[in-house]
């Protein structure tokens, strides 16, 4: 089976064999041959309005489905514009493949028009990257790229392809196998370690499941649930792991960390065994590392050996894929239950009620009183309409934390946010990707007035594809999170945080031919969000909220996570970062 084809067609052929159904991209000079080949190819191309958003949209697609998302950009500025989206995918371990055009091979290094060293620039932004200088290597490389992106700890991969490689003709033979001798994918987990882990769990008096994005990547939610229920232990899910355990599950506490709940942070601090599953002990979770979970032994299961012991030493490391490790762990745990569960049963029950006591003592602030809309009220209304089932794509900032705290996610892949890199401008384009991936789902893009203004060009994408994304702007007239820090730690010397010009939302949306509305009274909120949700097409809802609201609880930078500031008034200033 072989026939003469152009490089561009060969690329598309390989993409189809990887089951790619949509590419988020933006064309340019050197990708002309590729776009010409796409003209009569069944893969759908979605034209975004900026390459950065192509990468974010590909991520939205990947995060909503677990499949590899694909984006495409031209050489030079096209490729450099992708980089934020690539680093973002790297930080959150999201599988995407980015195809970039490159100038013709004989012009490489000549400072040709729209030439940039994409291979060099994207090297530290990716899990791996390729430059294909020989058309014969192309099929192999494309399949390697998808394999690397989607396997092991997922991540972004760039394939840089010069124009003449797109244009060249070659006999295409489908690639049936690839060989990457140095790429080690750790899968099964050591059986002895798994057994020891199960023993430790029954021996613990105050066990706590600390679940992260790894559970989502591994499709491990039902196994996690079984583990939590077998052990009857409380559980926290990190900002990357929200929905790994249903928010409505009785054992679920909340998100831990800098803006995590009082109960989650107290549970981490008082626990005697952390069952850390697919987490990386990120500084936003641990606060001051030396004071983090001071009484706990740590079982750490992760697919990436470099995560074990990186921030916190593991008493019992298990290197493996949670997809394989979790079922085994659950099985051994259940096996040992009849003989081992009784010993500390009472302690564990006391522990659970202690945790529940903390939950009741300091729940999240959900107060909706007052004559201005509180951000918490907005999130509560979105939560009401979502019922734990909608996809919520968040931007970065205060609204992100409130959306993480107050909206329930009862399934994995509903909460989509830029957790590690914290890229503003992520919310709307990731919602575009998520809506293409899941046309059946209600998709919210929740943004601040800052992040929204980074994404305004994508209103055109949403309008032209008629995507029914519900864009909710939590508008407080500030870069709220920065304002919060300036207020609390920089003597309220507010600088460069006031967003005093914001477009009139109805007119802005109307200019794109979509519906928009601005509200500023609490009594308008419920009906306005209902209107947005019931609108068959896109909707831009600009919600004016109380401008000085801060996110609490808050662990000041460098603080231990049990030293939370639970609300105004101000804590003593500490050195911030």
């Amino acid at each position: 089976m072989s026939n003469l084809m152009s490089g561009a067609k060969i690329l598309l052929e390989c993409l189809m064999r990887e089951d790619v159904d949509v590419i988020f991209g933006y064309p340019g000079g050197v990708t002309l041959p590729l776009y010409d080949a796409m003209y009569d190819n069944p893969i759908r191309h979605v034209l975004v309005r900026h390459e950065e958003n192509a990468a974010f949209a590909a991520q939205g697609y990947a995060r909503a489905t677990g499949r590899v998302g694909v984006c495409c950009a031209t050489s030079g500025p096209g490729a450099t514009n992708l980089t934020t989206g690539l680093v973002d995918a790297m930080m959150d371990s999201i599988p995407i493949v980015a195809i970039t055009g490159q100038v013709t091979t004989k012009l490489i290094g000549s400072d040709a028009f729209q030439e940039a060293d994409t291979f060099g620039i994207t090297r530290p932004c990716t899990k791996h990257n390729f430059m294909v200088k020989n058309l014969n290597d192309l099929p192999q490389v494309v399949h390697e790229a998808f394999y690397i992106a989607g396997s092991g700890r997922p991540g972004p991969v760039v394939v840089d392809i010069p124009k003449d490689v797109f244009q060249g003709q070659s006999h295409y033979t489908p690639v049936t196998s690839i060989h990457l001798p140095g790429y080690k994918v750790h899968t099964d987990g050591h059986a002895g370690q798994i057994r020891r882990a199960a023993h430790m769990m029954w021996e613990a008096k105050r066990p706590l499941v600390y679940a992260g994005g790894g559970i989502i990547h591994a499709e491990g939610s039902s196994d996690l649930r079984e583990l939590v229920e077998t052990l009857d232990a409380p559980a926290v899910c990190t900002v990357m792991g929200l929905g790994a355990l249903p928010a409505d599950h009785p054992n679920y506490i909340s998100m831990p960390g800098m803006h995590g709940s009082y109960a989650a942070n107290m549970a981490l601090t008082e626990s005697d065994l952390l069952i850390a599953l697919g987490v990386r002990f990120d500084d936003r979770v641990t606060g001051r590392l030396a004071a983090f979970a001071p009484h706990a032994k740590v079982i750490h299961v992760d697919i990436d050996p470099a995560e074990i012991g990186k921030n916190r030493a593991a008493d019992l490391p298990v290197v493996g894929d949670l997809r394989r490790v979790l079922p085994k762990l659950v099985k051994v745990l259940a096996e040992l239950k009849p003989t081992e569960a009784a010993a500390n049963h009472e302690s564990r029950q006391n522990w659970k009620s202690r945790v529940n006591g903390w939950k009741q003592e300091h729940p999240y602030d959900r107060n909706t009183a007052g004559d201005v809309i509180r951000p918490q009220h907005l999130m509560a209304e979105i939560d009401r309409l979502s019922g734990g089932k909608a996809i919520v794509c968040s931007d970065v900032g205060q609204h992100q934390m409130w959306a993480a705290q107050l909206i329930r996610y009862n399934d994995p892949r509903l909460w989509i946010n830029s957790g590690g890199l914290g890229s503003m401008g992520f919310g709307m384009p990731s919602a575009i990707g998520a809506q293409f991936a899941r046309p059946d789902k209600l998709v919210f893009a929740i943004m601040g007035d800052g992040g929204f203004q980074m994404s305004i060009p994508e209103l055109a994408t949403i309008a032209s594809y008629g995507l029914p994304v519900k864009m909710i702007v939590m508008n407080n007239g500030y870069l709220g999170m920065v304002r919060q820090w300036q207020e609390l730690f920089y003597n309220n010397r507010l600088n460069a945080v006031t967003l005093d010009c914001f477009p009139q939302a109805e007119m802005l949306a109307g200019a794109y031919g979509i519906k928009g509305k601005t509200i500023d009274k609490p009594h308008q909120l419920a009906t306005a969000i209902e209107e947005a949700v019931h609108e068959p097409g896109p909707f831009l809802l600009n919600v004016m909220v109380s401008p000085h609201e801060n996110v609490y609880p808050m662990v000041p930078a460098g603080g231990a996570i049990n030293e939370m500031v639970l609300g105004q008034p101000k804590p003593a200033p500490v050195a911030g970062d």
Partner: protein
Amino acid sequence: MLQVISLLLENKPGALMRVTGLLSARGYNIESLTVARTTDPELSRMTIAVDVEPHLRKQVIKQMNKLINVLQANDLTEGPSVSRELVLMRVRAPMEARANILKEAEIFGARVIDSSVEGFALEATGDSEKLDEFIDVMRSYGDIDVTRSGIVGVSLEPRKLRLSSPVTTRVGQAAAEARN
């Protein structure tokens, strides 16, 4: 003490950059780096000497082992190993000093690889500290030009090389299913 890392990696464009990028991204300064093809022309062996805080050394090795092009990364400072360095040196030698220079060179096991009326070109190998001394001694005879190769090292423990097996693509899987 410097960390000496030995890597076996694929001889591919960018592979060197991936390894050095890992170090530079963390702000580490590479003291020396050598790289050359192995008996298998598709593979290279690299030795890096780098100043890494002791508690981060394991993390650096783990991160290197994650690189797709790296087949194996070992910390030579962790176990028994030997390392050597090569020095090439031009030393100006007036007639009256030539005999002494040659005598000193012999003490350090250095070889003369070129001789002219201006002086000698010398070659010496050894561990880095010994070569430091050799350079100091030769400097006492006058102007010298020195090029050092950087450390090359080899572990004295047999290390098992674990390589991944080929993976079947979706095309391959479909073909296999069709055959069955």
